[in-house]
């Protein structure tokens, strides 16, 4: 992992961990406070609950004791003892009934006296109903004289049910207290798990983001290295819409401009060299032409012999030399024109006015084919060009189309269309024809100096065109389909304001200054 990646991951971890640690501390504090409050509350509740349970227990014990004592008192009842002792069963029954009905023995529901024989001699109930659902009973047996006393006491069941409910409540309270203590621990565990998950996610996201960023930076770095080594074909893939994507886009544009400038400079250097050769050739060839022609004319004129064969040979030689000298003169003229191309003097020119001017001054070429037409550009677009040189460019392109059609014998059907349109900061000028077109190998070499496929061509016209266009800071290309025609596309700098015009003028000046010097005409 690179240091840049480590920094990004560490930053993301820091962003994730700091609030989490603060939360852990805060949550811990909240839990402690909450537990303290809850513990106090539980303490306040559990003590009364415990006391209530003790009170119920005391109640049960006391009531039971009361019943036991009551039974003992009943067993000492003098009337009962007397009746039992005298075996007075009627008296015994009467007394038992009195005792059961009397209010002196609370809860006494049934009383029975068994004689020494173990049989019931007398028994009575107080007449009330004691359903088991609502009452609990306590049967007490006490010795009575020679017999026994069986007393059944009843007490409401409600306190027992309440005691049981109290037990359940106490148990639930204890369980909840236990759970509460353990829930604190569970919450901390859950928090730790979430903390771990956040750390993992933050690390993962950090690594992902860092890798993505550094990968993009690494790609750009590699591309810069390639450009530094001179490979101007390098392009980087533009992904996304962030600043890195903008950077990649700007890099590609920059490399594209560098490549274009290098090609422009290379081409201009090549043309400059050819211009120098042309200038020397023109100079070297031009000088002996006139003496050769004069010498030939003199020989031809001075011969006064009557040898018809020699006369014929002399006439032929004179005609050939005169023709060739004329051809050489034209070539020298072309070389000379090529070698002495004027410097670009750019000015803002309305593209419509430029084309209109071209049609006025080059009627001759437009008449050598079926039609040369142009489309007016709307709205008005100004380009920064040397009016004369740019007309020369358009003329050369139209002338080239016409000559190609004438060589192919299709000039009568040739239609040439000149159009222009605004394309951002540039103006695209197209010269399209329906001539014979050209194969791909010709198209690739068409702008090379001295390359021509025409019988009368010098191979300089399109080279001059390209040189002029490049010196305007523009570009030129050609598309062609054999049998269908060719389209030359020129891109020039558009100017809308004076400031832009000044900027473009500066650009062109710099371009001309950097380009190899050509001897001006």
């Amino acid at each position, binding site marked *: 992992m690179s240091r840049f990646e480590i920094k990004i991951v560490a930053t993301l971890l820091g962003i994730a961990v700091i609030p989490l640690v603060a939360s852990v501390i805060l949550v811990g504090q909240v839990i402690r406070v909450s537990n303290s409050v809850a513990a106090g509350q539980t303490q306040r509740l559990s003590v009364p609950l415990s006391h209530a349970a003790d009170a119920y227990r005391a109640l049960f014990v006391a009531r039971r004791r009361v019943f036991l004592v009551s039974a003992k008192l009943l067993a000492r009842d003098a009337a009962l003892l007397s009746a039992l002792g005298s075996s007075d069963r009627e008296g015994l029954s009467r007394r038992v009934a009195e005792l059961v009905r009397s209010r002196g023995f609370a809860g006494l529901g049934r009383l029975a006296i068994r004689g020494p024989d173990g049989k019931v001699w007398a028994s009575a109930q107080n007449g009330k109903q004691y359903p088991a659902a609502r009452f609990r009973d306590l049967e007490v047996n006490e010795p009575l004289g020679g017999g026994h006393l069986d007393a059944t006491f009843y007490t409401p069941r409600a306190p027992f049910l309440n005691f049981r409910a109290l*037990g359940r409540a106490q148990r639930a309270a204890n369980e909840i207290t236990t759970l509460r203590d353990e829930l604190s621990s569970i919450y901390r565990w859950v928090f730790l798990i979430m903390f771990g998950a956040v750390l993992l996610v933050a690390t993962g996201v950090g690594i992902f983001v860092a890798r993505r960023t550094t990968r993009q930076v690494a790609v750009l770095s590699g591309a810069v290295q390639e450009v530094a080594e001179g490979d101007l074909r390098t392009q980087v893939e533009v992904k996304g819409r962030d600043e890195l994507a903008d950077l990649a886009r700007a890099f590609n544009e920059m490399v594209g401009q560098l490549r274009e400038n290098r090609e422009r400079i290379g081409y201009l250097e090549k043309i400059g060299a050819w211009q120098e050769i042309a200038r020397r050739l023109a100079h070297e060839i031009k000088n002996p032409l006139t003496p050769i022609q004069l010498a030939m004319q003199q020989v031809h004129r001075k011969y006064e012999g009557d040898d018809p064969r020699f006369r014929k040979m002399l006439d032929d030689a004179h005609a050939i030399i005169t023709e060739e000298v004329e051809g050489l003169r034209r070539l020298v003229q072309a070389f000379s024109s090529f070698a002495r191309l004027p410097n670009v003097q750019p000015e803002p020119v309305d593209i419509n006015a430029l084309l209109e001017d071209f049609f006025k001054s080059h009627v001759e070429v437009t008449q050598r084919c079926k039609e040369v037409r142009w489309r007016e550009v709307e709205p008005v677009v100004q380009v920064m060009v040397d009016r004369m040189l740019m007309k020369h460019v358009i003329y050369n392109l139209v002338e080239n189309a016409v000559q190609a059609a004438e060589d192919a014998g299709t000039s009568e059907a040739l239609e040439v269309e000149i159009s222009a349109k605004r394309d951002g900061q540039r103006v695209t000028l197209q010269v399209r024809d329906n001539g014979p077109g050209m194969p791909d190998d010709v198209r690739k070499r068409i702008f090379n100096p001295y390359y021509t496929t025409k019988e009368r061509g010098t191979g300089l016209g399109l080279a001059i065109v390209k040189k002029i266009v490049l010196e305007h800071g523009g570009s030129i290309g050609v598309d062609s389909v054999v049998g269908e025609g060719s389209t030359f596309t020129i891109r020039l700098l558009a100017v809308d304001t004076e400031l832009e015009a000044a900027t473009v003028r500066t650009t062109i000046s710099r371009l001309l200054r950097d380009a190899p010097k050509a001897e001006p005409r």
Partner: protein
Amino acid sequence: MICGLLLAAVTPARAQTSVVAKRFSFEDRGGVLTISGGFRELFDKHLQKRLRSGFATTVVMRVYLYQQGGGKPIVVRARTLRAVYDLWEQRFVVRFEDRRGRRHRKFLRDGAVIDRLTSLWRFPLMRMAKIARARNYFVAAIVEVNPMSREVLAEVRRWLRRPSGGHEGGSESFFGSFVSIFVNNKVRRSERTWKIRSQLFYKP
């Protein structure tokens, strides 16, 4: 380091329940393997004292029969005992609940009740026919005293899901549901939990 500190902060103080080794006797009674034995010493004084409180003491025994080296228990048997001292009648009522159904018995002495709560007497495990010969077996038992009631656990889970008492849903109930998953696994489920393991035995 932070993780370590947090881990230290949240490590529960509750000690792990250790396994107690006990000797039990195993019998073939009418073609059924039974286990007998006790662990009375685990029933501490606090529990003994509470027996006469009048409140119920519940003991849940889960008995697992394992073959030595085997991963899963061959059979699981459970018994629940609930002892209540009736303050009115002044005697203990013990309710037994197992495969044979529910039955009650009354006792006067604490010792008798503790014996019942902490022992297995000819407790049936499985048919002898299903016990392989010359193989080692052992019994493991988990005994819980006063286990957490299901109602309380359910109520706590409900509180976790709805901390504000409102309807379910939202982030707070999501967090609560997440926490409630741990309630089952991490919360102490009873007042006392004993893990007991018998000696190895085999069918001759």
